[in-house]
């Protein structure tokens, strides 16, 4: 089978796209596929790296988005106010420009993070000590609530009551934080 684009080289890339329920099948040669940008993750060889892979994942994301939305000239491209990196730039290099990019590209990031980290989207590790005690307290409350749930399901009501008191105490501390912050 010859490549649909150039009708010269044999088609080696067979691509099925489904956009809004409409199915298109493309048969392309390597070269045309690259030029059309249809091949996302076929770097291979020397240039192969985590960044390329990542850019590949992101490209899939953006291909999806633009296909669904209005033509590109009518879209305002998402960009970071702080370092002025655009989402397209990020897609290209796989690295953010500054810490604020995470907030700026929040909506685009969720599917990517889910894919990279097996579904998790919420940090549950270390927290910087000076990062305001309120985060630490909130984390402890969340953890205690889980323990409480377990205690209740096991009908360990005495233990549950203890945990509830602990949670109440922490919540009162949390209120304290906000009042101090307000003054």
């Amino acid at each position, binding site marked *: 089978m010859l490549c649909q684009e150039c009708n010269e080289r044999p088609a080696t890339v067979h691509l099925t796209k489904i956009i809004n329920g409409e199915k298109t099948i493309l048969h392309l040669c390597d070269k045309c596929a690259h030029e059309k940008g249809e091949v996302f993750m076929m770097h291979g060889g020397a240039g192969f790296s*985590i*960044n390329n892979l*990542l850019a590949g994942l992101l490209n899939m994301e953006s291909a999806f988005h633009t296909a669904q939305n209005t033509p590109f000239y009518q879209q305002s491209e998402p960009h970071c106010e*702080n*370092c002025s*990196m655009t989402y397209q730039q990020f897609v290209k*290099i*796989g*690295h*953010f*420009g*500054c*810490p604020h990019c*995470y*907030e700026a590209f929040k909506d685009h*990031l969720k599917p*990517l*993070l889910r894919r*990279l*980290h*097996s*579904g*998790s*989207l*919420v*940090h*549950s*590790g*270390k*927290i*910087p*000590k*000076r*990062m305001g005690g309120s*985060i630490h307290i909130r984390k402890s409350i969340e953890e205690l609530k889980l323990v409480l749930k377990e205690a209740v399901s096991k009908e360990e009501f005495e233990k549950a009551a203890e945990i509830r008191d602990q949670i109440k105490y922490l919540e009162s501390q949390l209120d304290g934080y906000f009042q101090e912050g307000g003054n």
Partner: protein
Amino acid sequence: MSIERFLNQALSSWMSAEGPESDIVLSSRVRLARNISNYRFPTLFSSEEAKEIIDKVYNSVKNKVFPGIGELELLIMDDLQPLQKRVLVEKHLISPNLVDHATHGAVLLSENEEISIMINEEDHFRIQCLYPGLQISEALKTANAIDDVIEEYLDYAFDEKIGYLTSCPTNVGTGLRASVMMHLPGLVLTQQINGIIPAINRLGLVVRGIYGEGSEALGNIFQVSNQITLGKSEEDIVTELQSVVNQLIAQERGARENLAKTSSIQLEDRVFRSYGILSNCRIIESKEAASCLSDVRLGIDMGYIKNISRNILNELMIITQPGFLQQYAGGPLRPNERDVRRATLIRERLKMEN
């Protein structure tokens, strides 16, 4: 330079000391990626920002004596000779990226080279702790302690929901990469490794050969590390890695026992042939050297070869890399000259043992 003096200067603690399970686990490494808030990442930052970051990180650890670690010394990449940088890479103290792509790259090194803090590589800084043998939790503890000290002085880029913000989203969350270097000749010889690697990959961990291209592991040395950094606590990540490593150790021991039972004489033959090559060769390229070193090390572990210390594999794998060889030679070497120099170095090192 005499070989003794060269070795004294060349060896980091993780290469020469023994640690738990060091018949199979060569080293354990933990690194924490951290960034300072209100500074752009190295992807975009200005020269001024880069210099300020070096100052900030350096000032936060300057004149501090960390228990069991001592003081940290600052090395600025632009001040080093290409060969010196290469040696640091071969010792796993800095990444090739820091040498090749970083602007205003720097590293803070502890005297025993167990701690290195890379500055301005992909992230503002990365705390690395490298220990001999299987000591991932210990390495995490030390890295955390250093992180705590730095955090007293610097405001980190941290988000309540997604944790430590990193330049690349593959590191966001804990910013933790824990990895263990293992010598697995038994699993390779019995071909079990081919089934094991995909199984481990499915658990969110990555196995790859070190020094080798692609999946080929030079010297049967593999690195197992975590891939996921978000959604799990540091302790969970380390515990999961540790449990997989423990299983690998058990499998490797089983494979070695099997080999000893079923093909003892063949194995002994292989070990002594390799020993013969290493102690007599005049020209040897790195691939052959790695494979022979792996055999000799297996021979030592299984008791075929006596009176040679075990860490010879760790040592020689590192110091027969091109950068080290050229440092030992005192100047640049062409590839064929390296092969000659490598052979000499290995022969001399083996002679030291007898």
